[in-house]
């Protein structure tokens, strides 16, 4: 069963590739595109235009049934045992990865491209590591216990954002931060970055923060300029949440996550409030319950796939693609039934998005849906999304006098 391959279905293939990785043809191993890929994976565009970040170079990928090989500029993924293959495109690493800020910091240290969005973590530190209360699966690279952690300045982040947007690959800047002991969920810290990016660039900004103690901070997040917000619950099962994320369970609590998401979904535009539920950390049935609850509140569930991380104590056997596929099918159906906009969470290389789940049930996007999807992928579409989001904020936010001081940092 494990050797079953999904060459024919790009939706299932994306999941399988994320789960099992890929091997490189001998001719490709020395190729500049794939050097030093361990840990970062390779970005590949599948036949349905789905972008996927495929692990390669890690030990477990050596057992992958998939092989990437090239013929000139053309790439193919084949399943040698099965004998079939599909043409794919390999995405070159963005050129800004090899550039530096004026202060000498590598852009690749500050930002990571994930398809339609680029993630920037101005303060890559999670204070829970200091108390041994971190999330046990954590792969965020936040485990740097340091008295003087690196904090990227607003100017450094602005330079990075400029390089990203000039490159033109992604049009959403995704700001995130690790756990910090504060009532505002980290918004006061992120505020100057959000304000500065909004002031200098016409791009959308997504913010991944912690649920603040008061909903006023969610208003503040929207007022500052965040177009999308994520409070990542990670696990729906209450007991597993307390076991795997002890710090978050103790300081914030599962209920507060749910309350904050529910409130944010009434404030932010449809489809822009999201929460991660990691597939494989809990039984699939529990994830499905989580999907149902989040979608009923208007929240988009984003389902990354769990893989044990080197150096982490938590080692749960990953689920198989066969078990995972029904979960993604359920995701697509739940999002659709609750009439949640799927255009915001799209083209992400590290997860299967709700709209990509459509391929898993054999549906095709057509008519207006297809037109919208294609339109919002264009430059004009991105500008339109920015314009509409900005107009909505101008209409909704009545008083910005009290916005947190953006001169900090």
């Amino acid at each position, binding site marked *: 069963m494990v050797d079953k391959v999904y060459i024919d279905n790009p939706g299932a293939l994306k999941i399988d590739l994320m789960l099992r990785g890929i091997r490189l043809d001998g001719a490709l191993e020395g190729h500049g595109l794939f050097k030093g890929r361990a840990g970062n994976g390779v970005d590949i565009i599948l036949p349905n235009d789905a972008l996927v970040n495929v692990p390669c170079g890690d030990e477990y990928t050596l057992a992958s049934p998939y092989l990437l090989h090239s013929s000139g500029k053309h790439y193919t993924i084949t399943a040698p045992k099965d004998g079939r293959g599909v043409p794919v495109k390999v995405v070159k690493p963005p050129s800004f990865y090899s550039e530096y800020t004026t202060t000498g910091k590598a852009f690749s240290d500050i930002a990571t491209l994930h398809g339609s969005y680029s993630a920037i973590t101005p303060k890559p530190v999670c204070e829970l590591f200091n108390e041994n209360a971190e999330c046990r699966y954590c792969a965020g690279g936040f485990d740097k216990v340091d008295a003087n952690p690196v904090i990227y300045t607003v100017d450094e982040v602005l330079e990075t954002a400029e390089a990203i947007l000039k490159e033109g690959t992604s049009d959403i800047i995704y700001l995130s931060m690790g756990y910090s002991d504060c009532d505002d969920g980290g918004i006061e810290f992120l505020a100057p970055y959000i304000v500065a990016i909004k002031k200098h660039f016409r791009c959308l900004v997504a913010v991944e923060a912690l649920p603040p103690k008061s909903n*006023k*901070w969610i*208003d*503040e997040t*929207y*007022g500052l300029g965040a177009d999308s917000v994520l409070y990542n619950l990670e696990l729906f099962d209450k007991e597993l949440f307390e076991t795997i994320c002890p710090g978050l369970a103790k300081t914030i609590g599962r209920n507060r996550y749910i309350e904050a998401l529910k409130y944010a979904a*009434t*404030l932010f535009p449809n489809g822009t409030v999201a929460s991660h539920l990691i597939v494989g950390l809990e039984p699939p049935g529990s994830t499905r319950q989580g999907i149902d609850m989040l979608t009923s509140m208007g929240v988009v569930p984003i389902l990354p796939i769990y893989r044990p991380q080197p150096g982490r104590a938590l080692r749960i056997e990953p689920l198989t693609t066969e078990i995972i596929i029904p979960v993604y099918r359920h995701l697509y159906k739940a999002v659709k039934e609750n009439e949640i906009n799927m255009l915001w969470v799209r083209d992400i290389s590290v997860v299967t998005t709700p709209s990509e789940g459509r391929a898993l049930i054999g549906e095709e996007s057509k008519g207006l849906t297809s037109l919208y999807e294609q339109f919002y992928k264009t430059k004009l579409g991105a500008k339109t999304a920015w314009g509409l989001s900005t107009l*909505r904020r101008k*209409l*909704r*936010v*009545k*008083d*910005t*006098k*009290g*916005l*947190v001081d953006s001169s900090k940092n």
Partner: protein
Amino acid sequence: MGVKIDRRPIWLLLALKGLRTFFFIAIFAAFLYVVWMPLPDGLTPEGKNAIAIFLLCLVFWVSNIIPLAVTSILAMVLVPLLGVMPRDVVYGLFGNEAVFFILGAFILAGAVMHSGLSNRIALAIMERSGNSPKGLLLRIYLLAAILSCFMSEHAVAAMLFPIVFEIAKGLELRPGKSGYGKLLFLSLAWGCIIGGIATFLGGARVPLAVGILKETTGATIGFFEYSVAVMPIAVIMLAIGYFVLTRSFKCEITSVAKAHAVLEKRIHAMGKVTYNEYAVGAVLILTIIAWIIWGHSRGLATIALFSVVVLFILKLVRWKDIEEYVNWGIILMYGGAIILGTALEQSGAAYWLADRLVGGWITGPLLAVAFFSFLTLLFTIGISNAAVIAILLPVAIGLTSSFGMNPTVVAYAIAVPAGLAFCLPMSTPANAIIVASNYISVRDMAKIGIIMSLCAWIVFNLVARYYWPLVGIQF
């Protein structure tokens, strides 16, 4: 944190945003229609354009969709642009004596407030009120009225508000519930409003009215002459006001001993009377004497500006200190209003308008005074009192010429009631300030404000009919 989220449907918010644009387009379309419409009988082309500008400004002043001062600037731009008056005449009118009198009065009041003199006088008078709640109430009421005879009523309300607020807190009066709390704040606002009509200094309304009167008819009103004419109205209204106040809300306390602690603490914090306070007080008194003696011959503005120069020579104030007290918006607004009033008069539009609107049925001076004073009281409930004067006075002056009435009388009939705004917070800043305390609601204010407005109209007309002829004001 201070973000407020408007959660009404987006389509509604969009429609409301679009409404403003639609409003401007509609108003300018109506304006252009009036400009391009065929010339009515008896009206000159300049008069028709003056009416178009007047109507445009009327809508903007009443709706307050753009600041009053900006509407005035628009008038200044449109009058020469549409050929109603040459531009050198238009900008020359901005140098009107009334505008400079207002500037001088702002600076003098600013100096008095900055020196702390006004605050000290207020505290000293209140501190001597004894323990009777009615005694304290009367002191606040009269103090606000007397101070408003010498400086802008708005400034007096703003200055006394924190003191009254502290007294209310010191007496542990519950906001919105306490009858005595309501009385304290209403006595403050009504004292300011009634006292403010007694002299030229209570507000910039009277100088504006005199400015329009002088530019359009050549007639004027002196500082002393005005106070002699209006003082009885102020005194009677103060008496009626106190009577209405003390019967409107129940006083639930028997002693105000706790208020003295608050006042004493404030007086103590001020220290001894300073040289600046003595000197500023002396300059103000001498200025008032000069206004009374030489107001007609030398001009009120000249005396006011001379006093301002003296303040600076004696180093009693610095420009930086008084800048915050000078309301440049009001000065611009008044300049524009005088220009518009003159444009209406000189083009014959004021007479034409008055004749068409009320000429048929206002047949005598008494009826004219009764009508315009009533209209002014009605307008001033919802519109800035300066805007009311700018709107009504040119038309009223136009009417007087049709039956040989003294135009000075209609200037009084509009300038005085324009200051008697008791009903709503938007009527005058004094009302707005006390509503902000939460001790008095808009409903409370409107309920007894209507009674006061009605009384004001009756008192004004009785004084005009029976007292003014005795002091030489002939209709």
